[in-house]
C-alpha cells in the first residue's frame, strides 16, 4: 500500500508504514536529505517543512497525515540559491555548522509568506522553535530583516514558490 502526496510540486507516493514520520519518509525513502533530524520531538525545528504552506515539524507528522496534501522542503526554495531568503543568508554569511539552517530557512519562509514587515518580536515568535547550537541567531535575525526589506521593495516577489 502506498500513500500519495505533493512534494515540492510533484506528486509522489511512499510505501513506508503509515505511522512513519514524514521526516524519515522524505529522507530515507524519497531521498531528499536537506530536511534534518534533530530531536524527534518537535523541540528543535531542524526538520521544519511546509504543510499546505504552514511551517510544521516533519518529525511529528505521520505519513498518513500528509496523504493528498502539499509538502515543501528546503529543496523547494531553490537549487541555485535564488530565493530571497537564501540570498539574504548568503549576504549575511549566516550558517556555521549549517545543520539547523534548512529548518531555520523554512520557518523564516513561512513567516515572510504572511508578514513582509516582521518586528523583532515577530521573528522571535516565528523562530524560537528553531534551535541553533552555533548561535547564528544574530545573523538569522539580520538576514530575515534584509529579506523582508527586499520583499517590500519588490512587492512580495521571491517570497515563495
Amino acid at each position, binding site marked *: 500500500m502506498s500513500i500519495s502526496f505533493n512534494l515540492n510540486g510533484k506528486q509522489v507516493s511512499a510505501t513506508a508504514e503509515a505511522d512513519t514520520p514524514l521526516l524519515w519518509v522524505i529522507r530515507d525513502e524519497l531521498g531528499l536529505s536537506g530536511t534534518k533530524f534533530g530531536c524527534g520531538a518537535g523541540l528543535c525545528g531542524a526538520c521544519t517543512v511546509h504543510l499546505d504552506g504552514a511551517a510544521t515539524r516533519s518529525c511529528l507528522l505521520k505519513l498518513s497525515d500528509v496523504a493528498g496534501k502539499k509538502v515543501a522542503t528546503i529543496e523547494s526554495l531553490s537549487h541555485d540559491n535564488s530565493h530571497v531568503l537564501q540570498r539574504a543568508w548568503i549576504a549575511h554569511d549566516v550558517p556555521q555548522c549549517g545543520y539547523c539552517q534548512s529548518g531555520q530557512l523554512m520557518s523564516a519562509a513561512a513567516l515572510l509568506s504572511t508578514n513582509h514587515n516582521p518586528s523583532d518580536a515577530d521573528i522571535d515568535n516565528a523562530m524560537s*522553535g528553531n534551535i541553533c547550537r552555533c548561535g547564528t541567531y544574530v545573523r538569522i535575525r539580520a538576514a530575515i530583516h534584509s529579506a523582508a526589506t527586499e520583499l517590500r521593495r519588490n512587492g512580495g516577489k521571491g517570497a515563495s514558490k
Partner: protein
Amino acid sequence: MTSRRNFLKSTAALGAGMVLGLYVPLSRAEAKLAGAEHVSNVWLRIAEDNSMTVVCARSEMGQGVYTALPMLLAEELNVDVRSLKVEIAPAAPAYINALLGAQCTGGSSSVRDAWVTLRTGGAQARMMLVAAAAQRWQVDAAQCRAENGKVVGPAGQSASYGQLAQAASQLPVPAAVALKDARDYTQIGKPTKRLDTPAKVNGSARFGIDVTLPGMVYASLEQCPVIGGKVRGFDAAAAKAMPGVIDVVQVRDGVAVVATSYWRAFKARQTLKIDWDEGPGAALSDKTMMEAIIGTAANMTPNDVRINIASTGDAAMALQGAARTLTAEYRSPLLAHATMEPQNFTADVANGKCRMIGPTQYQAGVVGDVAAALGFKPEDVSVETTFLGGGFGRRVESDVAVQAAQISQAVGKPVKLVWTREDDTRHDFYRPQAYHRLAAGLDAAGTPVGATFEVTSQSPTQRLFGLPKDKMDPYMVEGAVVSYDIPHSRQDVISHDAGLRVGYWRSVSNALNAFANESFFDELAHAAGKDPYIYRQALLSKQPRLARVMGLAAQKANWGKPPAKGRARGIAVLEAYGSYLAQVVEISRRDGEITVHHVVVAADVGQMINPDTVEAQVQSSIAYGLSAALGSEITLENGRVQQANFDSYPVLRMSQMPKVDVIIVKNVETPGGIGEPVTALVGPAVANAIFALTGKRVRRMPFSADNIAAA
C-alpha cells in the same frame, strides 16, 4: 611538537598536473595510530585545465576552517580562494595537527597550526610554477610574476598554472621561502564569504547523517541506561518479527537493530528486552560525585593526584601577612555538548577493509579505535570526513564510529548508525564537574599581595590520550594562572576520577577556571571597595593587550555610566589560545530568572584570517556560553542521566539571544585561536552582573532561579 621538522616533496599527479605535499615525519606510535600511509599526502592539486583543489586538513564544524585554511594557501599562491575547490582530508600522517600531535580538530588550534605551513606550501607551489615558466621562456624567474592563476613573463608571455603544473612538479622544491609581509596581503585579514555557505542554504551540504552507500542498511542502538553497563543477555524475538528488520546484533556498547530504514530500526528497537549488567556506574549520582570531589580537596585518596601548576614567590606567607584574606569556593556541573546533528557514523566493512564515513573531529582516533575493535590493521581502515553538524569536543570521541563498524562487520553490509537525541544526551562524554577553592590576601589598600588557586576536577586526557595519572593534564589547567600582577601566587590541580567518563567541551578547562578566577577577582574588587573594571585595570599594567581589550569593551558597554533601572553589568577578561578577550554583559532579573540583554566582546586575536569568521565565532561562543550559564545541567540518579531532549536540557533560543557587539583589534601579531575562548567568559561575566544587580554572589553554575535564591 611545533619543532617537528616539516619537509616538502612533490610528485607528478596521476600523469597530469602537480601535486604538492608537505610530509610530516612521525614517531612510530603516531604513524601506527594515524595509519593509512598509502594515502597520498597533498595540500594542492593543479589540473591541466587550471582547476585547483586545496585539501582542508581540519574538520569543518561551523568554525570556518573550510574557508580560512584555503585562504592561507591562496594568499601565497596568488589565486582567489573562491576559485579553489576544497576537499576535506582523508586520515593520513601528512595531516597531523602539530599543536595536538594527531590528526584532530580542537583546541582552537587549526589556524595556529596551519599559519606557517599552508602559507609556505602556497609560496613553494607559486615559486615552482614561476620557475617552470622561466625555463619555458628562457628568462630569469625574477622577471616573471604569478598572479590570478597564471604566470606572466617580461615580454608579456602568459601561461596558466595548469599549463605549467606538469613541468613545475619536476622541479626541486625551494628550501628558502620568503613569505609575504602582512601589508601585502590581498586576502588574509579581509572579510571573505564562507565557501561552504551556498551548500548550507539549499539542503545540499552533506553531513554524516546524509551519507548513503549502495546496499546500505540502517541501525538503531540500545545502550545501557547506565554508561559503561554491559549486555548480559537479550530477547529480540519481537524485534525480528517487525517489518523491515534484517538482524539484531550485540556489539560492545549494546544491542543494535538493523533494518531497511532508520524508522523501522528505531521502532523495532523499542521492543528489545535486554538484561543489563549495569556495573559500578549504577551507584553514581551527580550530588554524591560533587560531594566526593569536595571531600577530595581535604582528604585525598590514593587514586587522587595533586600537582602544582605554577608558583610565584611565597603565596602562603603573603596570605599570612595580608591585612585581610578572602576565600571562596565555586562549583561547576556536568554538561552535555548537544550538537544539533545527533551522533552518527556510516561504516562499510568488507573484504578485510573498513571504510568509515562520518562527522569526526579526530580522524586518527577513528582509525585507531575502529582498527582495534575490529582486529584490523590501521592501514585497512579509511576515514572520509563529512561536514559536522556541530562538534564542540563531542566528536573527538570515536564511540559511535566503533559501534557502526562493529554492526557493519556483524551484518556484512554497509550500515548507517544514527542515535536519537535522547541517546545523544544520555551517552555523552560530559564536561567534568569542577570544584574550586580560591584564597587571596589584600593589603590595606585592597590590592592583592598573594593568591592561591586550587581546582579539583577530572582529566579527559587520561582516558582519551592515555595521559599518565601523575602527569599534569594541560586541559585541566587552562586559565588557572591569571594575567593579573600578583607578587605571590600558587596554583594547584587535583585530578580526581569521579567514576563517569568525561570529555572536552568547548573552551575545555578555560570555562571552569575562568568562572572561578574571574568571579573571585570581582569579589576582591568589591571587598576592596573598588569598581571591578578599575580594580582589574590596575592589575593589568604589564598586560597591554588584555588591558586594551578590556578598555574597549568597557567603553562600548558604557561602563561607568549607570545602566537603565533594573539592569546591571558584569565584566570578565581572559587570555586563552593566544587571544586576548574581554566581555561586558548587561542583565536584568524577573521572577528569579536572568535575562541577558547586551553582550560586548572586545577581542585581540592577532592577525585575523577572515574577520567575518572571527566575529561569527564570538557570537557563537556567547550563545554556547549562555546556554550553560542560564540553565543547562546534566544530573545523574542511580547512574542514569536525568535529561533526555531539549525540554529537559534547555539551550539558548532566538528569543533569549542578546544584542551583541564585537570589537576586533586589528594587528599583525601571530594568530591566536577564537573558536572557543569567548565561551569561557560568559559564566563569570553573568555571575558578576548578578552580584551587581542583586548583591548575591552565585558561586555555582548554572545561574538558575534556584541557584540564585540559594546563594
